[in-house]
C-alpha cells in the first residue's frame, strides 16, 4: 500500500494535510470546552473601573448593566460620578478616543453621602428599599439612619422620601481629606520672547 502511495505524491500531501487538520481541530475543540471563560472578561474589567455608585444616571440600573452596555458598544461618557478620570481610564482600556462627559446624564460633582435628619424621619422604609447598596439601617415606624461608610451618594433615596428628610452632604471635607494641588502652569515664561517682555514692562 505504501508503494502505491509513493507513486501518488498528490494523495500523500492530501492525506497529510487532512490528518493535520483533524488533529488541530480536535485540539481546538477540546480547548474551547476545557478552558471556556464564564461571563465577559471585558465587561468585568469595565465594571472594575466604574465608580460603583449604582446611581443609574447613565440610564442603566447600576454599574454592571452599564459595563455590559459599553461592551455592546454604548458610549463611555455617561458616568457623571466617575467623571473625566473614569472616561480616561475606560478610553485607555478600550483603546478609543476619550470624549467629554455627556452633560445629558449630569455633571461631575464632589462626592457626597446621604444624611437623614433623624428627628423628621417617620420610619416609612421607602429609602431602605431604594438604596442599591443596603446602606440605610432601620425598620417600619422607627427612625432610619445612613451608614456613611457604605453610602455611595447615589441620591436614589431622596425621591422616595415622603417627608424630604434626607440631605446630601459633602463626603470629603476638612483637613483630613486635603492634599496638595499640582502647581498651576499657566505663566510659563518660555512662551514669551524678549520683545514681549519689553512691551509688558512698558504697559
Amino acid at each position, binding site marked *: 500500500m505504501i508503494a502505491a502511495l509513493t507513486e501518488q505524491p498528490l494523495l500523500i500531501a492530501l492525506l497529510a494535510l487532512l490528518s493535520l487538520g483533524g488533529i488541530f481541530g480536535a485540539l481546538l475543540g477540546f480547548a474551547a470546552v476545557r478552558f471556556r471563560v464564564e461571563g465577559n472578561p471585558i465587561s468585568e474589567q469595565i*465594571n472594575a473601573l*466604574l*465608580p*460603583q*455608585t*449604582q446611581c443609574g444616571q447613565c440610564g442603566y440600573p*447600576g*454599574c*454592571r448593566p452599564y459595563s455590559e452596555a459599553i461592551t455592546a458598544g454604548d458610549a463611555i461618557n455617561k458616568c457623571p460620578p466617575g467623571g473625566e*478620570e473614569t472616561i480616561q481610564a475606560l478610553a485607555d482600556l478600550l483603546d478609543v478616543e476619550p470624549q467629554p462627559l455627556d452633560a445629558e446624564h449630569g455633571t461631575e460633582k464632589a462626592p457626597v453621602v446621604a444624611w437623614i435628619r433623624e428627628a423628621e424621619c417617620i420610619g416609612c422604609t421607602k429609602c431602605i428599599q431604594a438604596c*442599591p*447598596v*443596603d*446602606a440605610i439601617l432601620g425598620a417600619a415606624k422607627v427612625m432610619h439612619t445612613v451608614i456613611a461608610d*457604605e453610602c*455611595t451618594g447615589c441620591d436614589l433615596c431622596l425621591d422616595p422620601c415622603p417627608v424630604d428628610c434626607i440631605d446630601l452632604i459633602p463626603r470629603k471635607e*476638612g*483637613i*483630613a481629606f*486635603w*492634599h*496638595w*494641588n*499640582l*502647581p498651576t*502652569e499657566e*505663566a*510659563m*515664561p*518660555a512662551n514669551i520672547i524678549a520683545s514681549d517682555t519689553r512691551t509688558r514692562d512698558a504697559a
Partner: protein
Amino acid sequence: MREIHDIHGGIHPPERKTLSRPGELRDAALPARLVLPLRQHLGVPAKAIVEVGDAVLGGQVLAQAQGVMSVPVHAPTSGTISAIESRPIAHASGLEDTCIVLETDGADESIRCEGIPEWQTIAPSLLVERIREAGIAGMGGAGFPTAVKLNPGATKPIDTLMINGTECEPYITADDTLMQCQADALVEGAKILAYVVGAERVVIGIEDNKPAAISRVTAAVQNAGADIEVASFPTKYPSGGEKQFIEILTGQQVPSGGIPADIGLVCVNPGTAVAAKEAIVDGKPLTHRIVTLTGEALGKPGNVTACIGTPIAHLLGDASLSAEERQRIIHGGPMMGFAVSDLDAPITKITNCLLAPTARELPPPAPAKPCIRCGHCAEACPASLLPQQLYWYARAKDHEQLSEHRLLDCIECGACAYVCPSQIPLVQYYRAAKGQMRDSEQEKRRSDNSRERFEARQTRLEAEALAKEAKRAARKAAAQEKAAQDGVDPIQAAIERAQARKIEQGETP
C-alpha cells in the same frame, strides 16, 4: 569609633543657624489665650472631654486619645475653657480645624504630677502606656504617636535605639539648643527609651556643625556613666531624614515601604526623648516645647520654651517682628516648611521653627521654566529616585508609573527643587501626586466594597422573588389538589360566592 557612611545626593544650602544663637534658651511670655488643636499628631484626632466654662489646671487632660493611632491633649497652664470650635491652625492647606480655646489665668497652677524615678523596676509596657498618656508624638516634625513607634511588635526585635540630633535643615536650632541645655535629660530619656524597646545599644547622632551640642552630650553621657555612643558625621542636607540618618550611621538601608524596626532600629528625635524622660521621671505630660524663632525680620531671634497652643503672632511679637509688606511666615524650615496663612494659628507639638524672612533674604519663588532635562535633580536626590521622571508622570497623573518609580519613597526634602535651574516646584508635584494616589486608592477600596454590596443585594432580591414565586406555585398546586379531592373547584366556588353576595347586596341596597 563607628564607621560613617555616605548617602546618595544631598545639598549644602547656606546654614544660617547662628542667627538664632543656638544654646541660649528663654521662656516665652504666657499668652492670654491658648488654642489647642485636637489634631496635632499623625492619626485620629483626640476627643475633647472638657466643656466650655470648665476651669482647668496645668497638666489636666483636655482631650482623650481615640484608639491606638492617637494621643491626648493636655492643658499647658491653668485657666478657663472659653470655646471648642473650628479655628485657623498652622497647616499648609490654610483650613480650620477643631481646637480647644483656653483663657489663661496667669496663676499657672498645675495638677500634682507623680513621676517614676525608679523606672527600671516597671514593666516596659506600662512605661509605653505612660508615654501615650503624656500625649507624646514625634517632635521632629511628623508627629507620629511615640507609643506606637515604641511598640513595633514581637516579630520585630529592636537592637539599637537611635537619637536623631541631625537637625540638617537651615535656620532651625531647636534640637541643637535642647541638646546643649537639656543634655542630662536627653541621656536619661535615651536610657528610658532603650529600656522600653529592649535595645542593647544607643547611638546619639549629631551633625558636625554643632560642636557645642556634641561636647555637652558627650559630657552628659560620661557623667551618667551610661553606655551610649555619641557619633558625629559631616554636615549635609538632608542627613536628618530618618532613612538617611540610619544609612549614615549603620550603612543599612530601611527597605522600601518598610520602617526602621524591620532592621531592628528605632529612631527618635531628641525632643521626644526629653519629653519621654519628663513623662516618666517627673510625671509631666507634653505641654511645652522648644521653638526656634528666626529670620531677619525678627529683632530678637532665638530659641524659646513655649506653651503648646501659643498663637504664632504672640511668639513673633515676643521676638520683635518688624513685618514687611506681604511678610511671609514659614512654619518649619525653609526647605520643608510651609507658609502660614493666619498668624492667629497656634504652635503645636510638631512646631520646631517659625521663620520670618525678609523678602531679600528668602525671595518668593521665581516662576517655573520648562524642564531642560539637565539631571541635576537625580544627582541631588537622597533617596536615589529619578525626580525628572517623577515630574513627568506626576503631570500626566500616571499613577502606575509613579509607583513603579517609587514616588512613595520620596521624603519631600526639596533637594531636587533646590538644585533645579528652572525653579520647578518639584516637591509640590510629588505631594500632589501622592495625595491623588492615596485618594484614588481609597476610592478604589470604596467602590470595590459598593460593588460587593450591590451584587449581594441583587442576589438577595432575586432569591426573594424566586421564593415568592415558588410559594405561589405551591399554593396553587395545593388548591388544585384540594379541588380534585373534593370535586369542587375552590376558585369556581369563590367566584360563585362573590356573585351571590353581589346579588344579595343589589337586592338590599
